[in-house]
């Protein structure tokens, strides 16, 4: 919301600087996002009068002697065509800053500092300026639009700073307005708050007018009162379309609006000043001298002022004459009834349209305006009345037309009067936790227009008619009091009345952290990736069209197709991270992520989808192997004391010979594998990449096992190394399992070498295991161990055809 200081000063006597006011507004809940002096870039420009002016032969340049009052008389060269003796112009002295323009003298190219110069051999100590060079437009100062020198008034004192003369010393507040205060989307709204923080009276703009226009018969019908709770129409006759006066054009210009003509400018002015969108119809274009506010008919069309055609439906509210739509309610008028230079009779409209109706139509049609965005924030009906009065006053003041008696107001009966509210002072103070003195409560609420009275514990206020956000509870009033009284009065306490509660993570939350820490210890860093991914990610993993992973929940309004699906697997994000790292020259890395995958029972969603946590681990780089990653997974299982089994398996994107499915309690819970060569080739990956993804929820029941100490045997353990020759198709797991179950004293079996070669023969391999025997109640003798080994070997020979090498 842009608010010029000069405009605010019309309605409040502001006796603090712009900077101080910024601080006061900030404390009251109005953050000034930017405070900008209108002429911030302009300095060192003063009023000068040309005393002599001689043309340099064969050029368009004049050498002038310019009287700068206290700054003396300076020789300045000037190429403008309106330089003349006796004329008063803005003079940028040496060292001044002004805008540099392109050759067209119109386009601003930046800020420049004026230096001494020479033109055609003539010294020049400054520059006579145009409006553009000072950032002043025709709307801001009459005559400033001329492509030549800006002519200053004859009474401008020589040597005086031009900024106050041209209004360049004004300030613009860009204020961020919270959604609960639509009333402050207006100059008077801000002015009321300024008045409140300064504890000064707010002066209402002039709303008076005399009804001396023509009389006609006119009818307004509101057929959709739910979408239009108040509609006011007023007829103004004898219209004289002309440019608006300088003061109005200047104000509009400061808030970024181009002046068009008096009647149109008044509607824009009222929108900015009162926050009430207005519309003006050319009455002679309205059939049957009537207005009907109704839902559009299916496929009805309208062409708006900007010459765009829209096909409508009953979701859209339209303003119609006796026959056809003449405006898209709250959004934009129709081209068929716009104000023209020839307009003689105007029907003004001020209305309140329901904010969601305007929003829906605006979004659906892709058509928006200052008016629609204002309605979407919410307009109060009291201001609707004020806005109409202000517009009629301005019609009269600008001599734009004669205000008639024809005033038609249709409402659903909502009050536009202040309404009484009584709250408890004690409760108010209890919310704040401090005791605000009664007189302070009165002082601050009074400044905010609440007309407060206190008797005993009862605080009676009249809620201002423009404060739709106050819905009738003590919290509303407490907020008004404290934001005005000041949050610095709050005294920190530490839950002095609260019940003591037991806090902290629950068991599952603790386990999750421990899982993460276990993986960190294995060298894997935690990743967080977006919860959404791309259909292309599924293609990258070669997920078949009919696979479950393809039944992803789709975001209806994604930022892009690449962020349009809720993840059904974490592997793609991890693989993308690997690709990103390699592309950036990071040749090795280890990451894990624990995050949700989303499974819908049916699409589109009718119930909460299942949010299932998965664990994804990725490793890439020359030193990584299948077994380094598998080691991390095993370490996790060992830490929490559960057993995972790995069996040869496949996925669509991993190496067929280097992939295992991982099972827990006989149920498949995920995979581990090397990313397939062809997938890598497609992604230009030149390093080995290994991925693992597990259903974390399946692990959860196994994560809570308590740590229980098993006494350590006081007898020495014995180890034996067994090199076994087996046929190629026998797996390590088979042998390990066979050894481990062959003797109750065997507590650990670990493979330490695999050998293939002539010595063991074609189709065979030798696997060497380290076997640990743990005694329970006596020291083992060498013979005893030999006996157990023999037993083990016998079993291995029988079940797996294994021989000792």
């Amino acid at each position, binding site marked *: 919301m842009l608010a010029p200081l000069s405009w605010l000063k019309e309605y409040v006597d502001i006796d603090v600087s712009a900077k101080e006011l910024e601080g006061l507004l*900030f404390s009251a*809940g109005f953050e000034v996002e930017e405070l900008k002096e209108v002429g911030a870039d302009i300095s060192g420009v003063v009023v000068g009068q040309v005393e002599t002016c001689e043309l340099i032969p064969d050029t368009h340049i004049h050498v002038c002697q310019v009287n700068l009052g206290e700054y003396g008389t300076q020789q300045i060269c000037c190429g403008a065509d309106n330089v003349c003796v006796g004329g008063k112009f803005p003079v940028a002295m040496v060292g001044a800053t002004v805008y540099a323009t392109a050759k067209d003298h119109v386009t601003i190219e930046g800020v420049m500092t004026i230096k001494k110069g020479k033109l055609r051999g003539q010294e020049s100590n400054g520059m006579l300026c145009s409006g553009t060079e000072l950032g002043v437009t025709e709307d801001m100062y009459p005559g400033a639009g001329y492509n030549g020198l800006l002519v200053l008034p004859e009474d401008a004192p020589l040597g005086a700073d031009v900024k106050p003369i041209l209004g360049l010393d004004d300030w613009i507040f860009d204020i961020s307005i919270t*959604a609960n205060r*639509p009333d402050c989307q207006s100059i008077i709204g801000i002015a009321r708050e300024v008045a409140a923080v300064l504890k000064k009276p707010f002066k209402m703009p002039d709303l008076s007018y005399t009804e001396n226009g023509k009389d006609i018969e006119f009818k307004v019908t509101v057929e959709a009162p739910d979408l239009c709770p108040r509609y006011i129409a007023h007829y103004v006759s004898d219209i004289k379309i002309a440019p608006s006066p300088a003061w109005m054009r200047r104000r509009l210009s400061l808030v970024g609006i181009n002046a068009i003509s008096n009647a149109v400018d008044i509607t824009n002015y009222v929108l900015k000043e009162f926050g009430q969108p207005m519309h003006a119809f050319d009455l002679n274009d309205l059939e049957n001298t009537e207005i009907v506010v109704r839902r559009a008919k299916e496929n009805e069309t309208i062409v708006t002022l900007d010459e765009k055609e829209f096909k409508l439906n009953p979701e859209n509210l339209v303003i119609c004459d006796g026959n056809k739509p003449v405006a898209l309610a709250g959004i934009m008028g129709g081209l068929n009834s716009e104000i023209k230079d020839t307009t003689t009779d105007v029907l003004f409209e001020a209305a309140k349209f*329901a904010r969601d109706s305007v*929003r829906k139509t605006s979004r659906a049609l892709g058509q928006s305006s200052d008016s629609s965005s204002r309605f*979407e*924030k*919410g307009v109060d009906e009291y201001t609707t009345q004020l806005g109409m009065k202000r517009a009629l006053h301005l019609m009269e003041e600008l001599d734009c037309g004669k205000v008639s008696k024809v005033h038609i107001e249709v409402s659903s009966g909502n009050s536009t009067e202040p309404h009484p509210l009584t709250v408890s002072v004690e409760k108010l103070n209890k*919310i*704040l*936790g*401090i005791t605000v003195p009664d007189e302070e409560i009165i002082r601050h609420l009074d400044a905010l227009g609440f007309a407060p009275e206190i008797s005993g514990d009862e605080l009676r206020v009249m809620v201002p008619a423009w404060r739709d956000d106050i819905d009738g*509870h003590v*919290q509303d009033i407490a*907020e008004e009091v*404290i*934001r005005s009284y000041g*949050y610095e009065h709050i*005294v*920190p*306490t*530490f839950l002095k*009345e*609260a019940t*003591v*509660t037991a*806090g902290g*993570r*629950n068991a599952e939350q603790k386990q999750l952290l421990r899982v993460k*820490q276990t*993986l*960190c210890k*294995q060298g894997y*860093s*935690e*990743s*967080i*990736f*977006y*919860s*959404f991914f791309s259909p292309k990610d599924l293609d990258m993993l070669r997920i078949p069209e009919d696979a479950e992973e393809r039944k992803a*929940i789709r975001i*209806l*309004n*994604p*930022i892009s197709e690449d962020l349009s699906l809720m993840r059904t697997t974490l592997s793609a994000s991890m693989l993308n*991270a690997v690709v*990103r*790292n390699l592309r950036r020259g*990071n040749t090795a*890395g280890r990451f*894990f992520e624990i995050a*949700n995958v989303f499974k819908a029972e049916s699409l*589109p*969603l*009718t119930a*909460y*989808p299942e*949010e299932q946590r998965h664990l994804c681990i990725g490793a890439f780089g020359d030193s990584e192997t299948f077994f380094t990653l598998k080691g991390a997974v095993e370490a996790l299982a060992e830490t929490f004391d559960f057993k995972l089994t790995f069996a040869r398996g496949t996925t669509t994107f991993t190496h067929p010979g280097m992939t295992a499915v991982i099972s827990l309690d006989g149920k498949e819970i995920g995979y581990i594998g090397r990313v397939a060569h062809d997938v890598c080739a497609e992604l230009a990956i030149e390093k080995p990449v290994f991925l693992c993804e597990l259903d974390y929820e399946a692990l959860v029941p196994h994560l809570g096992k308590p740590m229980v100490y098993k006494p350590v045997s006081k007898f020495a353990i014995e180890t034996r190394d067994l090199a076994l020759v087996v046929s190629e198709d026998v797996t390590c797991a088979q042998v390990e399992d066979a050894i481990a179950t062959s003797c109750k004293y065997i507590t650990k079996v670990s493979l330490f070498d695999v050998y293939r070669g002539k010595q063991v023969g074609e189709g065979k391999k030798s696997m060497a295991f380290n076997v640990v025997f743990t005694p329970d109640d006596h020291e083992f003798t060498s013979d005893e161990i030999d006996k157990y080994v023999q037993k083990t070997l016998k079993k291995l020979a029988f079940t797996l055809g294994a021989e000792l090498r």
Partner: protein
Amino acid sequence: MMEENIKAIRAEIEETLPTLASSAALYEFRKSFLDNKDGKISGLMKAMKDLPKEEKPAFGKLVNDLKTWATAAFDEADEKIKALELAQKNKDEEIDVTMPGVKTEVGALHPDTMIINELIDIFAGMGFEIYEGREIENDYYNFTALNTPKDHPARDMQDTFYVSEEFLLRTQTSAGQIHVMENKKPPIKILSPGKVFRSDDDATHSPMFSQMEGLVVDKDISLCDLQGMLDIFSERIFGEGVKTRLRPSYFPFTEPSVEVDVSCFACGGKGCKLCKGTGWIEVLGAGVVNRHVLENCGIDPDEYSGFAFGMGVERIAMLKYGINNIKALFESDTRFAEQFKD
């Protein structure tokens, strides 16, 4: 004859000992004289039996003297050689101590997790439990129950991702408040971390980020309690002496609503680049729970009151660790990750 032998042995030992370079050679040499079976000195002892009886004592003494002398000489030589050998061994084993150490490479938790852990530690001590809600929420829990009905302009404060008419990606962890309050009666103290989503993707916004929401509902909870708790939070997370400042703001589910600034921990409030010269840094939003929210959850707002606060986890992480780009948090660059080993 025998005496000459003794002399010769002595001479041989004296001559040879200095030439021996290793303890192994010395051992062999020593053995050749003192070995019980075939050492030369031992041999003299054995030869003594052939001597006339009267010569035996004198000769025996000579041999014994020789043996004592030899033993001492060998011991002395042994000590010298061993010392030399140890010196050599130490020299051989000398290393370049500036070479890199061998590390067990550990990984790092994500900065978000580190901040969340820190926050949980702070608030768990104050009696907060942890509640983690869903990422896909019902419109009712994310907006309507939080006093933000369908036509409410506050919905425009957040650009929402919808996955159906009714379901959306939660825009705020506040959605969890409602689930908790529907299922638990006061006293309530919960902390709710989680991912949230807004349709905003530019240099300073990520469409997904994390929030941490806190909620207290009990009897007689006031704005003073909120500031007191936030003072403790600020000091613990940003360092001693950091103060908080409340200023008015607006959230549909709290009233009064405040923005909470902390005094700049980089400059101590004097004004610097981090705080853009203001001395204050905005870190979270908070307020007294709106009575309509309590009513929506079946909690009597005349009996109970409460406050809620919510902060962006990445914002805290970026402030605390000086991370300058929010996107870096979701890229898993190895050079990023290795800076957060805890």
